[in-house]
């Protein structure tokens, strides 16, 4: 007799989707943050450095 364990399969598919989706979100956020930081560094209106002159 075929066992009734569909809930385990569904749970596995949902968990796998959550891992992949979470990773995609993490990559998207990291890339966005880096692009914003790079844009700030390249911006001509960047505030002057706090480093002492000659340092």
């Amino acid at each position, binding site marked *: 007799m*075929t*066992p009734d364990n569909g809930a385990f*399969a569904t749970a596995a*598919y949902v968990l796998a989707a959550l*891992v992949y989706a979470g990773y*995609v979100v993490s990559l998207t956020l990291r890339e966005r943050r*880096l692009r914003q930081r790079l844009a700030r*560094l390249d911006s001509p209106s960047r505030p002057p450095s706090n480093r002492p002159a000659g340092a």
Partner: protein
Amino acid sequence: MTSAQEPITPPPARRDLLLGVAIVAVAAVYVRALAFTPIEARQGAAQKILYIHATAAFIALYVAFALMAIASILYLWLKDEKLDRVAESAAEVGLAFTTVVLVTGPLWGKTIWGAWWTWDARLTSTLFLWFIIVAYSLLRGAVEERGRRARYSAVLGILAALLVPFIHLSVYLFRTLHPMPILLKPSAPSMPAEMQVTFFSAFAAFLLLFAALLRSRYRIATLRDLVANRDQELAA
């Protein structure tokens, strides 16, 4: 030439078509596997976990960590930063796929063995590899100097990849609960044709997802190095 002086071109910011295609392909595989693939008579619907568990394992072990090892070896030889970024990206994406293996495996094991986990050779060595790749990621975050970070992580990456053949052969070398390969073996696959179609479709879809994630992660590594270069230029 130091790492920081290497010119880096910023990757263009645009919608990731490959990732979009991969997500659609994976969604199609989910529908086919859950709704249109027959249920195995003895194991029941839980056998369908194979399509996401085994494909994730194949891609993590034989694609991601193999790529990490090859890129690491080539980095130690050629000292090209791009190779270090490839190794780093393959390791992290491989870690995500291995996480899927370790999350879905116990759900299948519980239905078949009656236990969520058993400390047999295949499961334990896969978990051990997962921890090594976590350590690899922590190492990369802990060493600031880029050349040294790349060297140390290349060595650790190569050592980690040495576990892959052991994991593959563990079911032959030891008495384990984990089943023998039903597809990746010298003889013909022991699986009905309809299930094979689902399995190989899943493999293709997840391979596409791997490629998209790898490309995305490589872009992040490039941007991070570019930001570090700009920071150094400003500090000079």
